[in-house]
């Protein structure tokens, strides 16, 4: 008997997007993500290989840069992640491994992370209930990346737009707890 294709599950069980005046929140389940950790002395070569292929070099620490079909984001000392829409069957690990062979460790993180996107003028009010960092535009600009925590859960946050818009990445197994906190934190705005 032919096996049916397995249905992928969302990172958050029973997720309902938030869409209210000044605030929208949603979960992105359509991304392919790969970790890029250059080997000793190979960061420049990695950057050049990426620039040649995608027109983007590795961003500086605490920064993210987006091109037409890929986003490169700093994810810690000497490591980055690449992010793209999965589309029909795009797999950045498969795509980057040959490109960076011998230059960097490439690891599939597509399923290891839950990705939650926030936008609207109340986004900061909600995030302030969990994150201990200053998200004011004077301290945190579009393209900035911070590794911090929200509600005792480790997260990486990026400002992705001026509305303002943010993207938060966290380990997938924590996603339900994170969503539970979000429902609590947004209750005042969505009631």
């Amino acid at each position: 008997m032919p096996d049916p294709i397995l249905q992928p599950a969302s990172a958050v069980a029973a997720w309902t997007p938030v869409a209210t005046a000044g605030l929208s929140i949603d979960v992105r389940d359509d991304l392919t993500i790969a970790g890029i950790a250059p080997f000793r002395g190979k960061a420049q070569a990695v950057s050049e290989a990426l620039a040649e292929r995608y027109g983007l070099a590795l961003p500086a620490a605490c920064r993210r840069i987006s091109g037409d079909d890929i986003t490169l984001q700093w994810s810690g000392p000497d490591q980055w992640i690449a992010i793209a829409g999965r589309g029909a069957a795009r797999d950045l690990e498969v795509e980057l491994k040959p490109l960076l062979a011998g230059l960097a460790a490439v690891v599939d993180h597509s399923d290891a992370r839950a990705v939650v996107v926030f936008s609207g003028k109340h986004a900061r009010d909600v995030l302030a209930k969990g994150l201990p960092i200053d998200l004011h535009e004077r301290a945190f600009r579009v393209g900035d990346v911070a590794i911090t925590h929200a509600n005792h859960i480790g997260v990486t946050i990026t400002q992705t737009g001026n509305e303002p818009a943010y993207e938060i990445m966290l380990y997938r197994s924590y996603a339900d707890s994170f969503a539970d906190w979000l429902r609590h934190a947004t209750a005042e705005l969505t009631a």
Partner: protein
Amino acid sequence: MSGPQSNRLASGGGIDRSRALRFTFDGRSYSGFSGDTLASALLANGVRLVGRSFKYHRPRGILSAGSEEPNALVELRNGARREPNTRATTAELFDGLVAESQNRWPSLALDVMSVNSLLAPVFVAGFYYKTFMWPAAFWEKLYEPMIRRAAGLGRAAAEPDPDSYEKVTAFCDVLVIGGGPAGLMAALAAARSGASVILTDESFALGGRLLSERAEIDGGDANAWIARVRDELDALANVRILTRTTLFAAYDSGTCAAIERVADHLAAPPPHMPRQRIWRIIAKQVIVTAGATERPIVFGNNDRPGVMLAGAVRSYINRFGVAPGRRAVVFANNDDGCATVRDLASAGIEIAALVDTRASSPQYISELAAHHGVRLVNGVVTDVEGRLGVRSVRIRPHAGAPFTLDCDLVAVSSGWNPNVQITTHLGGKPRWSDTLATFVPGELPRGMSVAGAAAGDYALHSSLASGARAGHTAAEATGFSSPPIDTPRADDEPTSIAAFWHVQGTRHKAFVDFQNDVATTDIALAEREGYRSIEHVKRYTTLGMATDQGRTGSVNAIAILAALTDKSIPETGVTAARPPFTPVALGAFAGHHRGRTFKPERRPASYDWTKANAGVLVETGLWLRPAYFPRAGERDWLESVSREVATVRSAVGICDVSTLGKINVQGPDALALLERLYANDLASLRVGRARYGVMLREDGFLMDDGTIARLDEQHYFVTTTTANAAKVYQHMQFALQWLWPELDVQIASATEQWAQFAIAGPRARELLREIIDAAHDISNAAFPYLAVGDVTCCGGIKTRLYRLSFSGELAYEIGVPARFGPALWQRLLLAGEPLGACAYGSEALGVMRIEKGHISGPELNGTTTAADVGLGAMRSRKKDYIGRVLGERPGLVDPARPALVGLRPVERAQRLRAGAHFIARTAEATAANDDGYMTSTAFSPSLGHWIGLGLLRHGPQRQGEIIRAVDPVRGEDVLVEVVAPVFIDARGERLRA
């Protein structure tokens, strides 16, 4: 004397007379107005006896009109929301409010425990220490329950708190603490420069003391000025105003904590609203404009209802439109008497006398007294008479004979204390000011400034000016420059004072700390008994240790102690004030972290299915793993677990092992790193194969075990136990970043990427064949025991397959990207149905690993070596690795160390218990004869009896011996036979099948 708001003035006050609110106090119904506090509404209704004191059950009334209140503490609300020790002076009135007085039985007016008053000589300073010293056994059973019953203040709710709380972090350039005249000016000056400003105020309205005084600013009513400032601040995007918010702590680097009472002014918070919210505010500059607190003068019976701070009298008249009495005596050592006389007179309250402690009063005071026809006495009030409230006062003039005056209100002022607490939270000490006769802020933390009354600038114009200066300076310090703003026109009212603390020669007890019932005699006694440091006196008498933190009593106490010890007040010093400045509900500190959300949960792939199918979950760290899956008709966990084990041993079972730690190790030096981390040889591990490995700590003890798979020449994939995943990852990072930074390796956690399931049992391959795409050969020849490889399943899904076995059966682990985990789990169960498959959990896994003699958490307990658990032969002699050198210490290689054995009961029906200690058959069960202990036990369905693993001295040489497993905790003593630690398939044929 009480009637429907009988003491409400005909006009005036900031209350909304069109909005009447009903409330009850001790079961009686009253009404007040929107804008009232519970205290002002009670006074409006002529209620002035509101509670009984902590120790002596003395009748108490309302002393203040603010958060410093030591007396008017009530139980607010009822049921699950009942909160004891709520200050009536800050509780906002709402329709339907229910309050009860505390510490009285059977009623407030007739409290039998007030006999404690007669026993006052017994309840002196240090009475706990003296009275209840001996015998020690009486403390727990008799004294403590007795004291708690007699002295407790209020009753906490018995039910769980139904409300929610939250915590918020905010950042700003300038934080202004207190929205009185100085705070408003500071906020305005800073905000106009463009700096981001947070302004907090504990009241529901901005204005501070201005709300309680008849002041003019810019030639008009101060209230109009407040409204203009508020409008301007509200319109600025860089300003956040937090009312009903008390800043209760200052920490390092400009971090402050505040509690916002979001919904305490409502009967109950709406469902979406938190009751309270803690703000963590990180400010570059902090301006303390927290105002000042008035001191009472200490005299006989000064705690009787009707004795009230003069400033509070003015608050009730001016802010709440309430007459706090009918006939008043004003008793002061400072010019506050002026304003009090003026406001009493304008409210139509009779003034029996103005008693000024000074030898002679300034001319403007005598003129004011004359103008209002008030008798001015230079002297003191020695005592109040009246039991449940002031009836009269005894006055002793400096010249002439003492006399008595009838009155029902004593408005008292000994001057004002700047609210310096926040300035001292980081260790700074306040400084004594002779001119102001009080402590003012001393050395301030970096980035903090003080303005207005908090800095001792009491008079209105100088307060406004100092606020404006502080706001401007703070904004400049954060890089925002603008011209200084103009200070509005206002008068500087007289504020002269002559220090006066304590009336000597009183007939009655004179109280210093009202909330903790500390009288002048207690301080004197403490001094006589040798407690002369203010910190010692505080602890011995409990002075200043109540929830009000001694805000009205501390400075008087210091002055009294100074006089007793012949020292100056600055020599005597102040006690340290520590956070929190105001009581904060524990629920607020917990915020979202309570009950099920106390800490985050981690959920593996099978979580939703397990919940939906009534599976039982167990916590492993933050993970919730399936423990077992009961089926209808099964009586207990043992029956379910035994059925799961039997299914694996006879057919096939599926277990979620997603929680195991998984780490990618890649790079030219990947093998070099792993060789140093693991004790066993890895150099011979070929690509496409996995191997069991053990990792030691630096000190030579076992740290963790797991598997190492070689996926490629320079790519390894290691697993760890669930519990040690983070620790092993950290250990690897430490090795890489600190021990051998020269190694060219990159490691990355892959735990979350893969949903991973063990498929175990003689029919495992059959089941797998249904799942793995046909292109991949998984026959025993092509994919033997310990093979590993990347395949696809279910029509092309990325899959990593391992042939590993923890159960001892033919077994695989299959990993797929986590998003496919839930679907694959169900697919495996479905495909397994015809094969008789079942899901099994960590309990069955535990049984099977004991049957196979595999170690787990109970053996990996931080005190065992590889040799102790039978893995000594794995240790490589050809390489160096972490733990090798220290692992060879004599104590760690002692052949007498308890080592792993199997145990089975001689009487097969008997149960074995983990934790039981091994004793030789004929020896006495004493610690000296302890030969080791049972680490793990399980009922083996395969063997039909209990089995165990244990660490036994000289264990491997004692196989066949009968010993005792003694469990003193459960009172059990079982004869057990020492056997090899592998109970099933000792030759390992099944797992290679």
